[in-house]
């Protein structure tokens, strides 16, 4: 019993160490890629796959988040006679929490799974060994462009999700639930600050970086066979999902503290 527990702890520490080394190598390679114009072509290609092709699905996600929030919150607010404040509730939820988190989760499914499957297949068909054997660093060539593309484009995709979330919420609130348009926007403008929008976008950097690093790591450490690739994809999504939620909580606490220390006193002055 104790032997099994000990072995699992050692194995867990070993895996954490491996991931730490991979993360360090990826960070160094990504920083190196930023200053090497030769790498820009690879980054650009990944930006097209990761970013441009994800826009429709992210916009759909954002729109449904906004519309669902409007439907769910209307009855609660109407019961208190505050239905005109529906805009502020929808928009702050969308830009600060639900937009970034759901967009990142959608990306973890769409992009993370694809990254793991692609790199995992390359690993089991010895393509990664082939890259190494030709004197090229596979982390520099394969991982750095994917991490940089996710880092740069996840915040942008979150902006798209936010926009469509706001539009979806507006559409249901004003057109379907017959809330006054001026009141909707006026209360939204009062309640949603630039800070709220900014932290939603900044979260995108962390979510995108974590998702890309986890997915690439799972691809690079994929076991042999179709089952190995499938298992790696599942593990990558689950790990990315949990990391996004945990990061969202941690970043919420950190940004909340920063807001209280720096932002509120400025407003009071």
């Amino acid at each position, binding site marked *: 019993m104790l032997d099994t527990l000990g072995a699992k702890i050692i194995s867990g520490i070993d895996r954490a160490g491996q991931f730490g080394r991979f993360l360090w190598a990826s960070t160094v390679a990504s920083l190196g890629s930023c200053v090497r114009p030769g790498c820009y072509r690879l980054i650009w290609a990944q930006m097209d796959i990761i970013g441009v092709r994800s826009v429709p699905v992210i916009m759909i996600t954002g729109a449904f988040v906004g519309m669902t929030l409007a439907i769910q919150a209307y009855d609660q607010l109407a019961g208190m006679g505050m239905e005109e404040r529906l805009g502020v509730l929808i928009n702050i939820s969308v830009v600060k929490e639900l937009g970034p988190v759901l967009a990142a989760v959608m990306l973890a499914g769409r992009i993370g799974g694809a990254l793991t499957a692609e790199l995992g297949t390359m690993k089991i*068909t010895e*393509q990664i*060994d082939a890259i190494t054997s030709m*004197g090229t660093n596979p982390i520099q060539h394969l991982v750095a462009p994917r991490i940089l593309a996710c880092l740069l484009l996840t915040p942008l995709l979150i902006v798209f999700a936010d926009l469509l979330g706001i539009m979806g919420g507006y559409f249901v609130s004003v057109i379907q639930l017959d809330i006054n348009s001026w009141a909707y926007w006026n209360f939204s403008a009062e309640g949603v600050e630039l800070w709220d929008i900014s932290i939603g976008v900044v979260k995108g950097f962390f979510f995108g970086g974590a998702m890309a690093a986890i997915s690439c790591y799972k691809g690079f450490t994929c076991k042999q066979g179709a089952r190995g690739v499938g298992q790696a994809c599942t593990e990558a999504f689950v790990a990315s999902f949990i990391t996004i939620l945990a990061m969202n909580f941690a970043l919420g606490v950190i940004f909340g503290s920063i807001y209280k220390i720096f932002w509120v006193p400025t407003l009071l002055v």
Partner: protein
Amino acid sequence: MQEDKHKNQDSADAGDPLIRTVELTKKFGENVVLDNVSLAIGRGKCTVVIGQSGCGKTVLIKHFLGLLRPTSGQVYFKDTRIDNLSEDKLSGIRTHFGFLFQEGALFDSLTVAENILFPVRRHYKITGKSGIDELVKSKLAVVGLQGYENQFPENLSGGQKKRVALARAIALNPEVILYDEPTTGLDPVRADMINELICKLQNNLGITSIVVTHDMKSAYKIANRIVMLHNGKILADGDTAHIRSHRHPDVQHFIHGKVSRDELSVLQTDENLNNSTSAKEPELRQSNTKFRFFRHSD
């Protein structure tokens, strides 16, 4: 295990060895794959490494260019110890090698031309499209695949993939080419074409070849020297005549493709086999075993 004490002059005389391993040991967990392997590979020769599946042949050649790091022991390339070099320093060493992987390991998102140019672009700055086209054509001409520049790997047969992979392996004009089971999965004619290519590259360009194979016909055709690995150790080492006349039963079983009595004992005995095939369905139903078998329709 008794190692080969009667090495042929050709094998012992690695002269000025290009690659050398000293007491190389590799373990994966508790599994010892290579056990104190000391080997010197001479320049310009074709060394064939044979042995049963899982005996460590591929693991051995992956150590030659640092794709794997030894658990203990040393690996030298031209008197430079490479097993302890950083990845950055190894990148330079690796440009002296070409590696033909078992399944080709072509990049499926790139065309044949882009695959061949991959190592070139990483190490050289090429200017002018005509130079690039000429380089690709010349490499494809060596493997007899002119006109395939714009094909994707998915459109190629197994033999063609291996030839494109070989064209990519020679793209940097390497001093050494490592072949990992180059004829596996090919029909005899395509396999012979690959053998001819290996001989041609060695004879015409003076490339040192190290070939891992199970295919004895291929080994006899291309080898200047044959090394047999067994249970992680070198069991036999010499030229083809030496290997053919080697007295060790494991060498004889391997080169003649005959399974030994010990290995055969893991299979069912004839009596058990007869019982298992002659058992009728009612007997299976009535048998007092833990598992019962029924038709799907029951």
